[in-house]
Structure formats: C-alpha cells, structure tokens
C-alpha cells in the first residue's frame, strides 16, 4: 500500500512529537507520544490518565444502587450499557432474576445505546479521515435515539436507566410506537451512510491494510468487541454468556476477514443492522409483567466475588465486584474497560505506518477516554 522510501542522504534523525492531549482527532484527552522518522511512525506510546476521577474508589463508599449513576460517566457515549454491566454483575452476586419485561426493556435500551454509540463512532471516524458529511447524518439519527431515552428516563446522555433487579420505569405511552418507527426507518439510514463510504475508493484506500491485527495477536492482547471480531474471531458476550434474555433473540455476529480498519468498519456497520434486528424482535415480543424484581429495599451482599460482563459497543465491559458479609457497599468494584485494553495495542498497530494512519487507527479502536481513565 504505502511506498517504501529507500534510505537517503536526506534522512534526519527521529523526531519526537506529542499528539494530544488537546487534539481534535483523539476523541478525548489522549496523548500519544510519537517517534517519527520523517512521516513514518517508529513508535507510539499512548499516555492516559487525564480523565481519571477515581470512580473505583468512589464505588467503595456508596451503596450498591448509588453506584449506578457513577457508571454512566465512564463510557459516557454508551451509558446504558455501563449501567447494564453493573446491574448484571450485581444480580449475579445477589442471585436476583429479573422479570422478562424488564429484560426486554433493558435489551432495547442497550441496543438503542449500541446504535447511538456506533453512530458517534462512524461520525468521528469519517470526519477524521476527511468525510465531513456522515457526521451530520448520523447525529440526526442519534438525536432521535436520545429523544427516546429522554422520554423514558429523563436524560439524554448519562442515563442512570437500569436498576439492580430490573428497569426503573414502565415504558411511557407511545414509546413503543416511536421506537418502532425509528427501527423501521433505520436500515434506510444505514444504507445512506454506506453509500457515502463503503464503496468509495478513497475510503477504501485509507482503511484497507491499515492497522492489521491477526486473530492470535488480538487474543493475546486481550482485544474484545469489533477489534476482535474484525480479525475473524466470532465471539460476543451476548451469545457466549447471555444476560437479560439475549438467548431468546436471534441475531448474527458479523466478523471480518483481514483484521484491518476497513473490516472493523464493516463489522460495526453490520452490527448496527443486527441491532435493528434485535430491536425489532424485542418490540414484537415485549412481554407483559412487572418491570422490577422483588428485592429488599436495602441490598445486602454476602462475602464473595462475582464478575459480570456485557457486550458494550466497544467490547467486553466487565464489573468485578468483591463484597464482605452483610455489606451494603462493594468492598472493591473493578471495571474492566474494553477501550483500556484495546488501546494498549495501539503501538503495535501503527508501527511502520504513516502519521495519517494514526488517526485512522485511533478512530477504528473506538475509544472513549472516560472509560479508559475512569
């Protein structure tokens, strides 16, 4: 793909450059220290921690239900999924089963959130590579999704929309109809985005062969989510450790063939289509019943540890909760952020590429610094 430059008299020694932390293309406060040989990246070292807020420490001071709004702020683009992860882990720890209606509501919120997150990913990834128009189209759809969230739980971004034991509210009147309309119109919108990018020669030249990850490397480096699936490993927590009744829903898990940026792009587009399919099934099969399980007012755990995870749009989001006997707060609540582990592989992915590809690779990893730094 890229031309090999023969060594010449004019080569200068390596340049050390800092990319970020304030930079329009780093999707948050990320600093990448680059060693450049001309335009070629010799080494890249991501430096994080600019958004560290001590969330895990705070968890140790708050009762279990109080932790949920704090989980919103980690991956602020997909806050419903963060909530869901915590609730899944807590329900595992406390042995709570949620009613079917609550499970379907949570699944719908999570899939809507997945669509919203992938829309942001597409917008920012495209705009980093120069295609400025998909940004506006995707945010138009994202706004419709956020309106749905707002009518359900009152918030657009940091939702606090799941409770340990079910969903906090019953669906408001008309919500199912509006969601249904959105779901019906969505595949047409995805076609719009694909028309602009998927077969565009320039897009393909910018993304094919960039940031290639082999499946063995992906597993060794702990990648999850679209980076792992883009490399050909068909693995999704919703299929492997189903939570919230995902085992009752039919959906496919798209994978890529070569593990490059273009494949990850195709995987995420296909995931959006699958999310639409899941939403359609949830809407059609929404059962009646209560939305909260019968749980005591004050949740007390017993001593033990449990790990619960969900398939966040960015990868496997896991919560490892350790409790002591009769405790109302977690003794230790560790969040396994997918972006943190995915970002670790950045130096491997960009070594030997040009600076312009660094932006493409950061975009394709789909990182959110709130989650990385917590």
């Amino acid at each position, binding site marked *: 793909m*890229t*031309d090999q430059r023969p060594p010449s008299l004019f080569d200068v020694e390596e*340049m050390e*450059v800092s*990319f970020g932390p304030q930079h*329009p*293309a780093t999707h948050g406060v990320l600093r990448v220290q*680059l060693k450049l040989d001309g*335009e070629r990246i010799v080494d890249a070292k991501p430096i994080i921690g600019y958004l560290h807020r001590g969330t895990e420490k705070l968890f140790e001071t708050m009762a279990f239900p109080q932790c949920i709004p704090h989980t919103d702020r980690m991956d602020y683009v997909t806050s419903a999924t963060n909530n869901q992860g915590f609730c899944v882990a807590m329900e595992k720890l406390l042995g709570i089963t949620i009613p079917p209606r609550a499970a379907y509501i949570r699944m719908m919120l999570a899939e809507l959130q997945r669509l919203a997150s992938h829309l942001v990913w597409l917008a920012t990834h*495209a*705009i*980093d*590579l*120069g*295609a*400025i*128009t998909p*940004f*506006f*189209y995707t945010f*138009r759809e994202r706004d419709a999704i956020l309106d749905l969230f707002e009518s359900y739980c009152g918030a657009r971004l940091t939702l606090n929309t799941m409770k340990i034991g079910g969903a906090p509210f019953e669906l408001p009147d008309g919500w199912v109809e509006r969601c249904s309309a959105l779901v019906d119109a969505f595949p047409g919108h995805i076609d719009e985005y694909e028309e*602009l*990018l998927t077969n*565009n020669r*320039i*897009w393909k*030249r*910018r993304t094919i062969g960039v940031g290639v990850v082999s499946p063995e490397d992906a597993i060794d480096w702990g990648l999850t989510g679209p980076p792992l699936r883009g490399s050909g490993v068909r693995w999704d927590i919703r299929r492997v450790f189903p939570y919230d009744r995902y085992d009752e829903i039919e959906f496919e898990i798209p994978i890529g063939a070569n593990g490059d940026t273009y494949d990850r792009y195709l995987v995420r587009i296909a995931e959006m289509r699958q999310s639409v399919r899941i939403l359609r099934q949830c809407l059609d099969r929404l059962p009646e019943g209560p939305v909260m399980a019968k749980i005591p007012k004050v949740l007390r755990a017993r001593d033990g540890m449990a790990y619960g995870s969900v398939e966040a749009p960015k990868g496997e989001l896991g919560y490892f909760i350790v409790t002591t006997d009769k405790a109302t707060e977690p003794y230790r609540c560790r969040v396994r952020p997918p972006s943190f582990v995915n970002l670790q592989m950045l130096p491997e992915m960009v070594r030997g590429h*040009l*600076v*312009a*590809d*660094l*932006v493409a690779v950061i975009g394709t990893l789909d990182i959110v610094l709130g989650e990385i730094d917590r």
Partner: protein
Amino acid sequence: MSEVLIRYVVVPFIQTLVILFSLLGIVAYLTLLERKVLAWMQARIGPNRVGPRGLLQPIADVFKLFAKEDLVPSRAERFVFVLAPMLIFAPSFLVWAVIPFGESFTVAGVQVDSFIADINIAILFVLGVSSIAIYGIILGGWSSNNKFSLMGGLRSAAQLVSYEVPLGFAVVSVLLMAGTLSLVGIVEAQREAGIWFFLPGILGFGIYFICGVAETGRNPFDLPEAESELVGGYHTEYSGMKFAFFYLAEYMNMLVVSSLAVTLFFGGWLPPFPNLLAGLWQSPLLSWIPPFAWYLVKVLAFIFLYIWFRATFPRYRFDQLMSVGWKWLIPLSLANVLLVGIGVLILKG
C-alpha cells in the same frame, strides 16, 4: 490619439478597478455560498443569523479578520513571514487580467472588451503566474519557525508541483484543438468548431479538473491543511489579515480554476452548440441573455462541483495523493495529448 488612450489605458484601468473590487466581493460571498451549500447537503441550514438569511455573514467575517490580533511569532523571519501571504494572494488576482468574460460591447460609443488584456500567450501567462504562489507557501511554512508548518509547507508545495504537470498536459490537449495560446482565441476556436472542447477532450477535462482541485488544495486533496492531522499546515502561525489572505486566496484560486475550466473546455461565454442552435440563441426569446450570464452560470456550476466534492469525499493520505498524481494522472494526460493530437491531425488534414 485619444481613441488609443481611451481604448488601451482608460478602459482597461476602469475594467481593472471593476474586476478587482467585484472579485473581492465575489470571493467573500463565495465563502458564504460554500457554507450554505455544504449545509444544505448536510441536512442543516448554515449561517442565518447575521443579516437576512445570513447574507451579511461575509461582512461580519471580514470585520472579524480585521479585528483579530495579528501575531508574528517572536523568532519568525519577519520580512518573509509578511511577504508570504502576499506572494500567495497576488498571483491569483493577476491572472484575471487575461480571462475573458464575454463578447465585446459598446458603451457610449466606446468599444469595451470583456477582458483586460488579450495577450497571445495568455495560457502560458496564467500557468506561470499562478506558480508563484508555490513560493509563498514554502516561504510561509519556513518563516513560521515551526517544524510542523515547515513540513506542511513542503508537503503542500510538493503536491502543487506534482499536479501542475498533468494540468499542463491537459491544457496542451486544448491547445492542440484550438491552435492558439490566447484565451480569447480558444473561445473563438470553440465557436468556430461549433462545440465546446470538453466533448472531444473529455479525458483532458477530467484530468484538468482533478488537478485543479489538487492545485487549490481542496478536498479530497486537502491533507496539508486538514485539522485532524498532526501537521497544522503552512498557515498555522498566521492570524488576522495575513490569515485572511491565505483563506481568500484559496477561494480565489477556486474561481480561477473554474474560470479556466469554463474557458478552455466549456466554451467560455458561448451558449451550447453556438452555431448549430444559433437560431435559438438569437431568437427574441433568448437573445436578451448576455454572454456574461452564460459564463457566470458555468463558473457557478464548477464552484458547486467543488463544494460537492468537499461534502462527499474522505481525503487522500499524502503518499496516495502523490501516487495518484505521478502514477495515474501524468501517464493519462500524456496519452490524452497523443490521442487528441492524432484526432486533430485526422480531422484537420
């Protein structure tokens, strides 16, 4: 004597003033046009606060640029730093001296040509003068005392120089068809031939416009100035009026490229099929349309194409950009010259 004075001194002087000021206004409003058209393509409205429907936005932008603090970095090479924007801006004005807008017409008994000068090497003049801008870019990048600006300046210069070659060859194919270097002559040749040159020279037109987009540094060839890149581009350290010069020069260059495309390939001020459909164009229904209007519509169509490109395409990486220019466009443009040459030989005997 006074006839000569009027025709060759007074009239061109007035023309220069008219063209100069109207170009400044047009370029300013071109920025608004771009924002509005881009917004329309992106399902939004664009500037609509300043003035009715945003029509006073360019004036507000001009005031803003005037009022901005004009910084010169402390260790920059001051003379060159101030000179560079002028070197970029001036050539794009200079080429308008030879571009024809329409037919000659008489005003108060004086014949006025729709161009300032009709020199017989007009195209050469245009290509040569617009190359001076490359100096401005390199000097601007170097004098900023900023390694990123320098890198950006060098990259821009490399891009411009590479794309000048196929652009020149595409123009050569037109010269083969027209037989003259004068822009007025080229338009006249299209009238004689009865068709616009883009029909026989469609490949040349394609190459010309792509190179034109690359020459102006617009999407998809705008890597040197992209904000998402590490390198900020040669104009990183510029602010205020100096930055305004860079900014306006870009739009001015868009106008120049569009005008040349219209003049070389689309018949300048000629209506479509000027001889075949002469009856139609001279009928009382349509004869009121001034030739300048044809020219204007065509130029606006090209500006729209520029904006359309920007809304649609991602941008090329620098090495891909260079490989497109050297590996694809140059061989194609050479082949085009060969084909057009053979065609001209056959048709003209």
